[in-house]
């Protein structure tokens, strides 16, 4: 028998209210129970040219527990990357996703590994959600051979084709036409799969988005455009960048849905709805209302264009991991101690992966000339001094 609906609001105080009701109908649900549970999303969905999905989300104790574990792992991974960057073990760019974990985790819960995901450069957690390991992330960030791209790509270039994750792109908005192309391939091959093409509020005004969207709509491609709206494009607030920051409506003739991106259940529900919609009716835009705690990248303190109060306010009221923690406690799926122990284990897993990655060697110099072509045709390639260093591309 399903548990009584608990209307979770975004404010912490309201979230705590139903705890008393839960206690009175107390029953012990183990964290690996797959008995269905129904929980309401924090906020209703707002829709544009389509019907909104219901707020009641089907989940289970074990799924909620896995959400907590996965998001806690991602959070710990990103924070550790911050320290590694400051210790100069990571070079170049490093764009961190902490605060936005619910989007990556909720999406995975609604789809399969045959559905494709493509995103921009804030991709560490998306990569992990698709099946990438912590070792592959840290190895790649530190430029070692155990990295997901063998150390040759760096933070912005993580890929996992076997699980339909197409990266990992540095140029703002360029992944959107690529994503619509992936959807085109899926439709062309008559697969019943969809592509989630992710971008941020900063990319939302790119012309290529609208060009690709037009084609996707014209040809009914199973493309779901996901705007991860963290309200700042680098240092520019959305109201300074967009005449209309209602990104879910920007598709005009393409339907859209606005989702609380800090609520993993809402994300799951929206993505499930989007997949069904896209397979029948073509493209859809999902706007995930989310937030990043870090600045745009490690070169950005993140506090020159927003107040520390705003950041801590979101952390207190809307943190995705805290929301799930409260649900787990309220439904008696896990105790505070169990969750603290899990977080300790996560810390250890992350530290172990970092230690292992540090031991991994840098790529061999011969790797400079590998992976340039699929079919090199015996062409020659050269190093900086072409008479000293040359190679034949196989």
């Amino acid at each position, binding site marked *: 028998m399903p548990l009584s609906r608990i209307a979770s609001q975004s404010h912490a105080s309201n979230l705590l209210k139903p705890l008393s009701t839960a206690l009175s109908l107390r029953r012990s649900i183990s964290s690996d129970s797959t008995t269905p549970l129904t929980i309401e999303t924090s906020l209703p969905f707002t829709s544009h040219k389509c019907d909104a999905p219901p707020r009641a989300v089907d989940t289970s104790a074990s799924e909620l527990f896995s959400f907590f574990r996965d998001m806690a792992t991602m959070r710990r991974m990103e924070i550790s990357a911050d320290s590694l960057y400051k210790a100069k073990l990571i070079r170049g760019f490093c764009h961190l996703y902490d605060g936005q974990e619910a989007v990556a985790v909720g999406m995975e819960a609604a789809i399969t590994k045959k559905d494709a995901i493509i995103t921009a450069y804030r991709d560490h957690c998306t990569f992990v959600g698709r099946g990438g390991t912590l070792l592959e992330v840290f190895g790649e960030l530190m430029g070692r051979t155990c990295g997901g791209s063998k150390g040759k790509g*760096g933070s912005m270039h993580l890929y996992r084709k076997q699980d339909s994750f197409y990266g990992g792109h540095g140029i703002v908005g360029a992944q959107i036409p690529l994503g619509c192309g992936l959807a085109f391939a899926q439709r062309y091959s008559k697969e019943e799969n969809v592509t989630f093409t992710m971008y941020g509020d900063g990319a939302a005004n790119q012309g290529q988005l609208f060009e690709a969207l037009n084609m996707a709509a014209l040809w009914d491609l199973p493309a779901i455009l996901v705007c991860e709206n963290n309200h700042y494009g680098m240092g520019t607030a959305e109201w300074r960048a967009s005449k209309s920051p209602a990104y879910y409506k920007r598709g005009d003739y393409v339907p859209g849905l606005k989702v609380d991106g800090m609520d993993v259940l809402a994300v799951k529900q929206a993505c499930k709805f989007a997949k069904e919609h896209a397979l029948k009716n073509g493209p859809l835009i999902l706007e995930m209302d989310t937030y990043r705690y870090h600045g745009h990248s490690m070169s950005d303190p993140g506090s020159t264009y927003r107040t520390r109060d705003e950041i801590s306010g979101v952390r207190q009221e809307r943190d995705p991991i805290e929301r799930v923690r409260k649900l787990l406690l309220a439904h008696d799926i896990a105790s505070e101690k169990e969750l603290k122990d899990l977080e300790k284990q996560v810390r250890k897993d992350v530290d172990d992966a970092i230690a292992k990655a540090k031991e991994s060697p840098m790529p061999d*110099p011969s790797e400079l000339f590998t992976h*340039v072509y699929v079919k090199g045709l015996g062409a020659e390639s050269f190093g*900086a001094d072409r008479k000293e260093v040359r190679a034949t591309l196989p």
Partner: protein
Amino acid sequence: MSAGQISVPIVFRGPNGAAAGVGAQHSQCYAAWFAACPGLKVLTPYSSEDARGLLKAAIRDPDPVVFLENELLYGESFPVSAEVLDSSFCLPIGKAKIEREGKDVTITAYSKMVGYALKAADILAKEGISAEVINLRSIRPLDRSTINASVRKTNRLVTVEESFPQHGVGAEICTSVVEESFGYLDAPVERIAGADVPMPYAANLERMAVPQVEDIVRAAKRTCHRSVPLAATA
């Protein structure tokens, strides 16, 4: 296209080329791409004097100018004369600067590579080779006369650039010299450029993908028939 009715007096400025560890999509030098286009002017400052004088000239110029800076050079300081600090200081577009005079080999470079070429010249001087370093400043229009005059004096040429070698700035300079000063060359023209591969992220591979001072020294020595056998330089 409008027979001169409409002109585009705009300047596009920004960082160009590799920074440090920014990977394949953020490291390419586009000097040769832009310089292939008739109608565009392409400038590549190296020092503070270049940056100040060329930018003012670019803004005053009535044609579209692509002003290619370098992220790593933003952090470097250069001594400047009082003349440079004057508010009306301007440099001519299309003229290269001889940063260091020499008589044995001409080394052309632009942007960050000018600094590397100057360091290479110091090392070469210790070995008795006097290198003339030309800071191109202007990729389009290219100062062919300064380059050719220098090669006619030294008889040897090493071109240095950070970008990919094929169809690059060095290739154009080499062709200009072959076309106009072939008889003056005592050795084949040497070309030092970025490695012909997408820029890798790993620090050791990135170092191999970008020209280093020792590459320039080695190439200059080859033109002077003073190269060290390959095995020793491995």
